């Protein structure tokens, strides 16, 4: 009996998700014993042809991390989708767009102009930009196309399961692998993480006051954070109340607030809006001027509330006809 074949692939991501697989440590050996890794370009020498050679559905599972922005990423996602019985969107970028998804605040042209012409470290007087095709003496050279928008995995291909997190916590990866190997699978489309807010497993939850009323908001670098007390009670914006649990409150244990990487629970339509609602309701002010003064401590609401989820949000990307976000942000 041959072992089930699995593939790991990355799209628009940082490599942290691959690191998370390696973080299984010795357990990775048990995984390798139980499955045959057929494709994992980050760690082993595989080529695209190795995947193309497979029959449709021959892969038991494809774990794909990263958002989708280029034509190459979309092609690989479609290829792996065809070859795999289960596609698992692995990590925040694949699940909800992640950090690369914040690029949806800008147009393609703004990004290319900044990166190739205006960034302080760039010297490019001829304004050369990468082209998708160019004829040279040796033949035609091509590059993948760079899309206008960053997409989540499920906006490109059908996704069977989601493993959330930036990167997914080792415990969730282990649980997902075991569920796959044992065939104990939840309904298709499930997020393979607990469906309760992080506060439920927060080691500081007993220190949260009955009623939170914040006169000011503090950013983590502005205050010496007490390692025992609920971060919200200290005026530090912690998104644990609007985020799934499943990470063991790793950031909280590191004395940093939750930034929401596991995404919202299944009852939430738009995680960023829900987190915004929760934070705003905690402010202890009733006069407009006073509220505005407190809100000055949130210089970048999109970056705070949609840090990992802009492409998956209701608005998805910056609206076409609005005034440009604060002048100079791109400069």
């Amino acid at each position, binding site marked *: 009996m041959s072992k*089930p074949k699995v593939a790991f692939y990355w799209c628009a991501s940082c490599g942290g998700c691959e690191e998370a697989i390696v973080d299984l440590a010795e357990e990775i050996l048990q995984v390798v014993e139980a499955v045959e890794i057929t494709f994992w370009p980050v760690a082993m020498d595989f080529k695209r042809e190795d995947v193309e050679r497979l029959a449709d559905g021959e892969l038991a599972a494809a774990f794909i991390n990263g958002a989708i922005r280029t034509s190459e990423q979309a092609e690989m996602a479609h290829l792996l989708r065809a070859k795999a019985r289960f596609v698992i969107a692995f990590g925040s970028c694949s699940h909800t767009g992640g950090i690369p998804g914040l690029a949806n605040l800008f147009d393609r042209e703004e990004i290319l102009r900044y990166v190739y012409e205006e960034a302080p470290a760039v010297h490019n007087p001829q304004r050369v930009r990468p082209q998708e095709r160019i004829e040279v003496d040796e033949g035609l050279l091509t590059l993948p196309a760079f899309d206008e928008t960053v997409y989540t995995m499920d906006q490109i291909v*059908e996704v069977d399961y989601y493993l959330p997190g930036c990167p997914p916590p080792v415990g969730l990866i282990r649980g997902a692998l075991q569920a796959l190997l044992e065939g104990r699978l939840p309904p298709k489309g499930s997020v393979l993480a607990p469906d309760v807010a992080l506060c439920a497993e927060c080691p500081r939850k007993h220190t949260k006051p009955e009623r939170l009323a914040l006169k000011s908001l503090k950013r983590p670098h502005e205050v010496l954070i007490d390692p025992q007390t609920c971060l919200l009670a200290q005026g530090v914006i912690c998104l644990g109340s609007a985020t799934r649990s499943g990470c063991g409150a790793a950031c909280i244990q590191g004395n940093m607030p939750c930034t929401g990487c596991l995404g919202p629970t299944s009852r939430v339509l738009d995680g960023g809006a829900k987190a915004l609602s929760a934070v705003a*309701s905690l402010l202890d002010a009733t006069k407009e001027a006073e509220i505005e003064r407190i809100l000055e401590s949130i210089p970048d609401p999109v970056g705070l509330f949609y840090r990992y989820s802009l492409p998956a949000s209701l608005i998805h990307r910056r609206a076409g006809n609005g005034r440009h976000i604060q002048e100079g942000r791109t400069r």
Partner: protein
Amino acid sequence: MSERPAGNGKSFEPRIVAFFCSWCTYTAADLAGIARLAYAPNARIIRIMCSGRMDPQFVLATFRQGADGVLIGGCHPGDCHYQEGNYKALRRYLLLKRLLRDLGIEEERLRLVWISASEGDLVQKVVNEFTETIRQLGPLRLAPQPRRTHLPAPAQPEPQPAVWEGGLP
């Protein structure tokens, strides 16, 4: 609500969704009706129990589903039937406006007003003003939302794949 001549702005009729608190603003809108005060027909009014029920998700979903402007009406400060719902609405509104600005949606497309049950004339004035504001701004053009391609959970459990005979030792 489907016909929607956009473009040159001349024939643009703003689509406005108004969420009015049951205790004050919605009653005021009723009063405006009883008093036969005519106002712009662009606003579709939805009654909510309190402006504090106005989840920012509702605002974003309303824009996503085609509204050009969202109007929220609540009781005057100090008059909330539930003590502080309107203060929560105000805080969420001010933060949400900052978010909308950064998302490229003009702040003026969202407005929060305090209208008490007796101020039917104010409903007329605010709806007319707001409709005019949105008319000036033109239609909201959101980038289309990519569809999610995964299917909903199947009604019956799918047959288990036969190949998974292994298991972690």
